[in-house]
């Protein structure tokens, strides 16, 4: 009969030879293998002290960027919310008042900007949709929370602090390609 796949193997009921029946050579072979592993380099990382580096394309928690002068980039255009396949992003726009030029880069800004981290699938489409260089995914990890409400991140968490900028050069380079 023709074999159905190329990988099929013929079953052999070959009788074991005397040496094979002794089992001892096989056991010694096994012991040799485990002993080799005994002296091999260990793959375990001692986690809290040593951390495994993220892949350069890793997509974690979002950040809302500021420009060099410390003004928020986001203009609440809503393109990220439209691009989001999980519908995780909601925002409310507001007009910039006089005297707020140091806070927001353009005349319109996001008064409220929320991402539901439980809905988010970390696809990075918001980042691609953004025309203002405002939203990026970083290699930070979203912390665990006790309630579902805790996972709805507002501007207080998402916008980077003026004196504590988040490095997104890795993501930027990828975008430029």
């Amino acid at each position, binding site marked *: 009969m023709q074999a159905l796949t190329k990988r099929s193997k013929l079953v052999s009921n070959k009788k074991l030879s005397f040496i094979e029946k002794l089992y*001892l050579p096989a*056991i010694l072979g*096994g*012991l040799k*293998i*485990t*002993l080799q*592993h*005994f002296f*091999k*380099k*260990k*793959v*375990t990382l*001692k986690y809290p002290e040593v951390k495994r580096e993220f892949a350069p394309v890793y997509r974690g928690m979002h950040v809302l960027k500021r420009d060099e002068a410390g003004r928020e980039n986001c203009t609440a255009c809503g393109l990220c919310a439209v691009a989001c396949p999980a519908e995780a992003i909601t925002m409310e726009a507001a007009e910039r008042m006089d005297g707020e030029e140091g806070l927001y880069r353009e005349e319109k800004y996001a008064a409220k900007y929320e991402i539901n981290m439980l809905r988010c699938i970390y696809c990075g489409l918001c980042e691609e949709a953004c025309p203002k260089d405002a939203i990026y995914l970083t290699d930070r990890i979203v912390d665990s929370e006790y309630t579902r409400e805790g996972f709805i991140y507002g501007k207080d968490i998402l916008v980077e602090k003026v004196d504590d900028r988040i490095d997104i050069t890795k993501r930027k380079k990828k975008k430029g390609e």
Partner: protein
Amino acid sequence: MIAYSILDRDWSFLTDKLILVGILFAVALGIAAYSTLAERKIAAFMQDRIGPDRAGFFGILQPIADGVKSILKEEIIPGRAHKFLFILAPCIFMTVALMTYAIIPWGKDLIINGRKFSLQLADLNVGILYSFAIVSLGVYGIMIGGWASNNKFSLLGAVRASTQMISYELAMGLSLIPIVMMSSSLSLRDITEAQSYWHGMHWNIMLQPLSFIIFFTCALAECNRTPFDLAETESELIGGYHTEYSSMKLALFLFGEYVNIFVSAAVISILFLGGYNFPYMNEMGLSPNWVSILSMGALFAKIFFIIFVFMWIRWTIPRFRYDQLMKLGWQIFIPLCIVNILITGLLITLKIYH
């Protein structure tokens, strides 16, 4: 008159023995405790992991942490269990495991202030018989524990343990007869001394390799170690005889197992690896006390090596099936042992072995 003779006797041997008992007790439990760590470390290393290393440097304090955890855990006795036997079983298991230490010669005699200080609790002239009797008692702990738990899995584990014990005790005893024939004594000290020729390298393993393999395998089976750990298979019997045990009683069972391993390793070292003999022990020109201390070190090195091999085998070989285990014991080992006895007898008659 009788009272006078009792008072008149030299009672110093009693303090000697009591000190030795104390030291041995501490050493035995200490080694058993660190065997648990060694087991986990060896398992980890053979699987390319690091193993426990959080409690102290290299996990040195891990056994203490485990012990404290075991003591503090909730103690559960199943409602339908036979309460007295349930509590008795781990006690029997542990006590019996510790009893074999009495006859093991740990080294040559020490001489302190002109007084001989024997490093053996009791030099029984039927040492091997004693050790066999005690080791076989160990299965009582398992059997009673499994039965008293009133749990099908526990009972199955207990039954397996006892059948395994019966099948392997026989081959174990038979495999030792050539050794006894060659050293013409049942005393462990005499057997050790008989291996001190050839500059301390006249080890029985070289003269009786087949006996060694059979005895070693049987020792694995006696200790309920992989590949013969059918009494406590996690996957089939959820731990076997100690399924229902918790807290310190479980710890006693697991701990007793490591004590057993230590005893088995000691017996194997004495019977086959020359005991406390080490190469050129009498030709080095050291003082007798130094030789005694070194001989003790040699015995412990051998014991640790055997324990390592036990663990090495555990993390290498998968478990035997039950019928394979029975077949190995009854159909392969016992005939081999008998053939071995005949050959040894022939060689002794022809004065090749003596």
